[in-house]
């Protein structure tokens, strides 16, 4: 179900429409996320930060974007 000329990806369970050729760095920028504070998984594989701006997304890609939050156990 991609938009014409675009791709649809899932970020943390939410659908996101992007122009074809978008990279992980583009997604983080669109979401106003500080790349130094997050980690990204694409289709269950961690994507190293150095590859964010080179990694182009495909239609249907599943992204997880995580950060650190307060916690001790569980």
């Amino acid at each position, binding site marked *: 179900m991609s938009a014409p000329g675009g791709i649809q990806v899932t970020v943390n369970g939410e659908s996101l429409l992007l122009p074809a050729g978008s990279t992980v760095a583009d997604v983080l920028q669109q979401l*106003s996320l500080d790349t130094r504070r997050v*980690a*990204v*998984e694409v289709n269950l594989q961690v994507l190293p930060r150095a590859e964010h701006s080179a990694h182009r997304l495909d239609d249907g890609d599943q992204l*997880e974007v995580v950060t650190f939050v*307060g*916690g*001790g*156990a569980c």
Partner: protein
Amino acid sequence: MGSDPFVIAGRELRSRLIVGTGKYPSFQVMREAHEASGADMVTVAVRRVDLKARGPENLLDHIDKSIFILPNTAACYTADDAVRTARLGREAGLSHWVKLEVIGDEKTLYPDIEGLLAATRALVREGFVVLPYTTDDVVAAKKLEDAGAAAVMPLGAPIGSGLGIQNRISILLIKEAVRVPVIVDAGVGTASDATVAMELGADGVLMNTAIALAKEPVRMAGAMRKAVEAGRDAFLAGRIPRKMYATASSPLEGVIGR
């Protein structure tokens, strides 16, 4: 008094008290409590970024730069999820250390030892320094050490329960059985509980709720610092044997009227 270094996987820590970052009334109180605790290692959870309601404040802005950040896999119920979370934590924090949790039961938050062992093996193969949160079971502790854990972290009582060390013998047995550091993780309610853990010979204590949910977290953090130090000193000093009857500590000679 000689030096008494606390070393995990080659990293020397100044404090034998390791604390959490959850449940504090505010980031400001957390920061002050961290300082009062003297801890130089704190644990943090790895979670999805909330895309809808994201505040401007980030936890990491409120942790002193001199403190080592230990990502954890809290709330993971399978070895696979714990491994994925550890990898994400490493990428987000550039640390290859992880406080490994694989939970097996929602009510008790007891660890799933099978999953814990599987995840420990997998992460050690990937070069992680793995600190597993485990039951107070000497067999599980030995298996985790054999699997390559850099320390074992038996619970004193269920997470957040504040019940104190429920089975002192178990902690003693684990300390006797493994060579890696033993850190009592979970169950501490108040300062004396931390002291008991240290008097038993534990190498360190990890706690979150007992400080964060105290009426005065900063004061409790200071109390815990002293409790851990006192317990360690008492352990090293060597306690007197327990005896059934009294033994006078004043001379028996020269008592008037005899």
